[in-house]
């Protein structure tokens, strides 16, 4: 027994007010058992796992891009005779119930009229689903039962059966492909356990049934080392006579597995800093036997959000201590590098970046985005490979977040949605005047949608405070640290709760499933978000929601019988890693735990995406960490059964 202590009592009271999401102990035990089983059999896979761990390559699936005017639409491309390669039938999707669920649990909650299946995100079926086009004919995809990280093949689907169409082994790491004219172009680079692997570009002539590939130039990609690794990514966009390929290589990092012997058993945390020609390595005090001596304050990284001062120690080591070569050091110290090439199937021609200061670049849907220290700029790509600056020269970090589709751009900042196209003016629309119409397929999730403003229909992004109707009364949304105020007479403002003041111009709103986030003040390009604002209170009470037979679950724990009141929808979208799905008419809902469906725990998720409705099915993408932190991507497909 102890005396009353206001400080302690108040802290305990406030802590007790926190309501952690619940998790079944069965799930914990089952996952532990499963991991131990995996670990016992993981030895032979260690190499593959290591490869996967260092891969930071942006995975981009086969993009179905509008053919340029001089090319035939894909649907009219003459279809050749089926390939002579033996048919390779892709196994049917795995039913959820067939997945190894960790441990025996209570019976699964009642299915609310949806049968869920899990696909490997790199499978042809998952890729075809991406564009909601059942006539999708080609896929650059992993072979069934492959590890899914490196080697892929080209598949063709003429009659519902996916057939491998290139007998040769394709270069390792091909990830990204697009149509151009009557050919499929693919580029990629293999992840490497050390150094950086060279990239490749290839072309498949659909009519001639021939495949050819060449390595990409070494100046950006290739790199050899025993102790450091580098990541890279590629993107691709069709031109009238080939494709444009953007390649980025990022600064390398030390592979501690190969140098840890030099550290006398100390396990470093994070990557080293270069200070006066030597490496300063952060060492967790937890694991440092001499933790109490020589603690050195380390500047807090605002992105980490956690002070590590006093909790960690540092060691200063020379490159020689770690066995690093001059090339290793150069790679560790480097800034990102980017290059762009034209590729016509046989030759590569270097193209100058339109922004000479750009350190990285990405191409998507006919739009090039370049990033430099001052922010990002966007450029339309002309058919002949030229660049036309978009958005009247806006620098993205100062204004908004834009996305491209079909040679157009759309994005938003403040209360404005901005659109631009290669042959049209930049337009800005005030969201306060926008009437959200019923054509938005999935208004409560952050899908692209159509909005009507001033008689014109435009494509917009990231408008999730939407349901049929208009925002006609002032609405305040209380978030963590910030309030979002939507006032038809005063626009959209963000109030810092600690000061009561409006945040300075330049913060932008970016919505993710379940939240609007405030991101990136000027001068902090790509930097942290200071808070989140839940969106659920913006769901319009006018929305009609039918009660649906079903159960709300979280990791197998039944939380509530299904009775959703749109005015009180909690943040299931992200908080509990659950899936909130709506039917095509947007009026019926089914909630399932993503973790439950995939057969893992919430802690294993690396990323979860939003729900889309494709061909009448619900599609959700995500990824999970496995042993040694390798990331596996999956696609959940829910098929209504009623």
């Amino acid at each position, binding site marked *: 027994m102890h005396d009353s202590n206001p400080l302690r009592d108040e802290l305990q009271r406030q802590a007790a007010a926190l309501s*952690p999401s619940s998790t079944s102990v069965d799930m914990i035990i089952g996952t532990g058992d499963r991991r131990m089983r995996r670990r016992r059999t993981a030895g032979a896979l260690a190499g593959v796992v290591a490869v996967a761990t260092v891969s930071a390559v942006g995975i981009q699936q086969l993009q179905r891009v509008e053919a340029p005017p001089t090319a035939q639409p894909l649907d009219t491309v003459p279809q050749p005779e089926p390939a002579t390669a033996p048919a390779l039938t892709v196994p049917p999707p795995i039913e959820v119930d067939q997945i190894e669920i960790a441990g025996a649990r209570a019976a699964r909650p009642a299915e609310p009229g949806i049968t869920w299946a899990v696909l490997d995100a790199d499978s042809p079926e998952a890729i075809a689903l991406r564009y909601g086009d059942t006539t999708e004919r080609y896929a650059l995809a992993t072979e069934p039962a492959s590890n899914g990280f490196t080697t892929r093949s080209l598949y063709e689907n003429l009659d519902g059966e996916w057939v491998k169409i290139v007998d040769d082994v394709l270069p390792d790491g091909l990830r990204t492909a697009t149509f151009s004219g009557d050919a499929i172009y693919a580029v990629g680079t293999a992840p490497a356990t050390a150094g950086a692997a060279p990239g490749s570009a290839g072309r498949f002539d659909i009519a001639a049934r021939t495949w050819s590939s060449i390595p990409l130039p070494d100046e950006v990609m290739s790199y050899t080392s025993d102790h450091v690794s580098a990541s890279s990514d590629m993107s691709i966009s069709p031109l009238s006579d080939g494709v444009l390929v953007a390649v980025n290589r990022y600064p390398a990092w030390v592979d501690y597995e190969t140098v840890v012997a030099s550290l006398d058993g100390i396990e470093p945390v994070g990557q080293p800093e270069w200070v006066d020609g030597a490496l300063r390595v952060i060492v967790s005090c937890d694991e440092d036997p001499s933790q109490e001596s020589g603690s050195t304050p380390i500047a807090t990284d605002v*992105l980490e959000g*956690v002070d590590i001062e006093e909790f960690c120690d540092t060691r200063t080591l020379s490159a020689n201590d770690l066995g690093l070569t001059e090339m290793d050091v150069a790679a560790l110290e480097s800034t990102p590098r980017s290059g762009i090439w034209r590729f016509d199937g046989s030759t590569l021609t270097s193209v100058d970046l339109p922004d000479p200061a750009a350190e990285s670049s990405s191409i998507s849907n006919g739009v090039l985005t370049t990033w430099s220290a001052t922010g990002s700029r966007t450029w339309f790509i002309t058919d002949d490979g030229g660049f036309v600056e978009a958005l009247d020269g806006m620098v993205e970090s100062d204004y908004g977040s834009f996305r491209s589709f079909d040679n157009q751009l759309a994005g938003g900042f403040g209360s404005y949605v901005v659109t631009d196209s290669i042959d049209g003016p930049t337009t800005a629309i005030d969201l306060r005047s926008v009437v959200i119409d019923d054509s938005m397929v999935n208004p409560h999730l952050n899908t692209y949608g159509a909005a009507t403003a001033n008689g014109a229909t435009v494509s917009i992004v990231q408008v999730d405070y939407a349901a049929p109707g208009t925002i006609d009364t002032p609405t305040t949304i209380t978030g963590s*640290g910030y309030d979002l105020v939507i006032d038809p007479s005063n626009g959209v403002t963000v109030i810092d709760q600690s000061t009561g003041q409006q945040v300075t111009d330049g913060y932008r709103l970016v919505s993710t499933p379940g939240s609007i986030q405030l991101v990136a003040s000027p001068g902090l390009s790509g930097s942290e978000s200071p808070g989140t604002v839940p969106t659920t209170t913006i769901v319009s009470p006018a929305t009609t929601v039918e009660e649906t037979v079903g159960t709300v679950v979280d990791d197998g724990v039944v939380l509530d019988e299904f009775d959703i009141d749109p005015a009180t929808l909690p943040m299931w979208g992200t908080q509990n890693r659950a899936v909130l799905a709506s039917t095509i008419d947007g009026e019926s809902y089914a909630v399932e735990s993503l973790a439950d469906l995939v057969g893992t725990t919430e*802690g294993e998720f690396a990323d979860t995406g939003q729900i889309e409705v494709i061909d009448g099915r619900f599609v959700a993408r995500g990824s999970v960490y496995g042993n040694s932190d390798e990331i596996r991507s999956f696609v959940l497909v829910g098929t209504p059964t009623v």
Partner: protein
Amino acid sequence: MSSLSAEHPTAALNVAATIGDLELFVETTSFETFYRERRDAVVRAVALAIGDLEQAADSTDEAMISAYQRWSKVSALDQPAGWVYRVAVNHSRSRFRRVARKARYNLSFVTDHHDDTPFANGIGDSDLLRALHELPLARRSVVVLRVLLEFSEHECAEALGIRPGTAKSRLHRGLTQLRQSVPHLSPDLTSDRPSHRSPNEGPHDHA
């Protein structure tokens, strides 16, 4: 194994006996008891340490999985909850760093993936909590272990892998800073003893 539910010990015992794995049954039920009794308390402590309730829950569950996998060793510690706390905080920090590193190297990642960034999430707002978050993590950890999990200074030290003197020093500094920030809650805390302990945690040295 997870079918050996503690809620049905007799049936579970029968199953365990049938498969000749009584030791496993005992370990499992011991872990289940620990999990049910301490999990939420650890989540709250981790949440206040890292400032993110959702991440705290995820990380604590990861730590619980690790604890289960080596339960014979973890359960022998004076404070298994301290071990779980430490692993969970490290897991969270690792997660945050991973996101930060990706963000640094690829700006587009920041634009497209916000799900894992370490925002203050699910934690309430008050003078006390703000003051707590102004403490360095090292001090914050000792404070939450001492106040929320009601560890002794010795147990705080063991849980964090530091010397008892260091734990005491950090606790003193942390509480001093808190008292300065929230003067209306100022009475000294350092002399307090834990008010109670979990039934599965034995006597400890409070030196």
